[in-house]
């Protein structure tokens, strides 16, 4: 149980049950779809960017607890940031969930709850899906993002 709680932290379970910024964003300027064929996670991200700042973003779709909570926490931490900051955060998050030797990273704030994912290689794709999809949306990449 104890190592399970390292993966499924209370914050993750909470965001899985009550995802923030969940639902359609009607007037979104940018969108992208992400798909993790291995486990059937599917999500869409809709974003508005004004003068290089993410003013609003929401997500929709279905997926496992890790992918849903990751999308939810991502929307919270990205809103109000510049695209440049968002890209940097993406890199930091990527390191958090893949690099076992990565030192604690203050900049990540709440996102640090995903550190446990690095011990479950099969779940890294779930944690990273929303981020790849966001990147595709702001890079205006029309293809469906796939983690395969």
């Amino acid at each position, binding site marked *: 149980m104890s190592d399970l709680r390292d993966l499924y932290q209370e914050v993750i379970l909470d965001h899985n049950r009550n995802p923030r910024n969940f639902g359609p964003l009607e007037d979104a300027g940018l969108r992208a779809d992400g798909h993790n064929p291995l486990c059937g996670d599917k999500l869409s991200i809709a974003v508005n960017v004004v003068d290089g700042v993410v003013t609003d973003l929401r997500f929709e779709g279905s997926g*496992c607890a890790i992918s849903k909570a990751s999308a939810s926490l991502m929307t919270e931490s990205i809103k109000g940031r510049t695209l440049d900051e968002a890209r940097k955060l993406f890199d930091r998050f990527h390191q958090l969930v893949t690099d076992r030797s990565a030192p604690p990273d203050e900049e990540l704030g709440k996102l640090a709850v995903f550190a446990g994912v690095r011990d479950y290689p099969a779940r890294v794709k779930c944690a990273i899906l929303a981020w790849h999809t966001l990147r595709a949306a702001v890079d205006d990449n029309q293809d469906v993002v796939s983690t395969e």
Partner: protein
Amino acid sequence: MTSRAENDFGPDGEVFDVERIRALFPILAQRPGGQPLVYLDNAATTQKPLPVLNTLSRYYANENANIHRGVYGLSQRATDAYEGARAKMARFLNAAEPAEVVFTRNATEGINLVAQTFGRQRVTADDEVVISAMEHHSNIVPWQLLCEEKGAQLRVVPISDSGELMLDELASMLGPRTKLVSIVHMSNSLGTINPVRRVVELAHAQGVPVLLDGSQAAYHMPVDVQALECDFYVVTGHKLYGPTGIGALYGRRSWLEAMPPYQGGGDMISSVTFERTTYNEVPHKFEAGTPHIAGVVGLGAAVDFIESVGFSAIVEHERQLLAYATTALEAVPGLRLIGTAPEKASILSFVLDGVHAHDVGTVVDTQGVAIRTGHHCTQPVMERFSVPATARASLAMYNTTTEIDQLVTALATVREVFG
């Protein structure tokens, strides 16, 4: 817990002792994280018993040489081992003769072989190939590729809410344009055992040949291709308690003779000049290049092993285990089984209310229980049942009721975590 399933059956009336069977599978002695390994992903691949492992190392240690070419004794022994395994596979499937068994890499290659030879030769524009809504991707995509190339149509027989093939629909799809029916014998995501004898009857009444995908069926029940009267039957070695990278295609001799070769190269020819090549006889015509000799020999040992345990014992043990597991899982709050056909075997696909299959898989893994989660290479089945994915426990001859209990306990942990 010991149940009747674990001690009453065995080959030739001998007692079927599941512990004796388990002792033959070294991997089952593993204790990941200090707990016994509960391996319930047999539909993906089965574990390998000592007779197979020993045969593989013995082959490489004592018999390794290339086949069908050396005049020296060692090459002859390797050839004998290889062709001996073909005879074993022919007996296992009750083919009329060993020449009707073609070795392939796996079931997928068997199906592709038929699509690329039989299919390309016989399917033309506006023809139809009939499959079902419960096929593995390997029995969908090769036909899509063929139909695209030829301008032909892929027809899909629907399935019922319990996961049964709708035979009437199949019958109504058959016509002068139908060139092949290709159907799974036993579904890997639902467990459904299809009425394949009836499928063959319906198709043959219209002069349509039938391929059966026996990837799952062949390790759960005896297969008799002559009694089924099917035209092609594919199996995959790694699910038959045998090595990976080896499978077999049964084809009726008359079809194999008429089909063009699959790949060109050594072994599949009888003579080559720059003007003209004549092909080797069946089945060598379809086995270009140096084959997976050790794999074939190991597969021969695998079917010997299955026969030594005996299907009467295997079927009865797995039937009781499935009944036990079905009852146990149905009692888990919020659990819904996907695939409840009356004729089914050894597969329990399920979804848990409010918990994604992938999370179920991760949590039960931490409790030492290996199950599969996802679409199981049957995305259309997931769509048919409106689920993104399922969790799937799949049984083999070495599983026990105790292991089912461990799965149920692990599912309780899922509830603890997710509420």
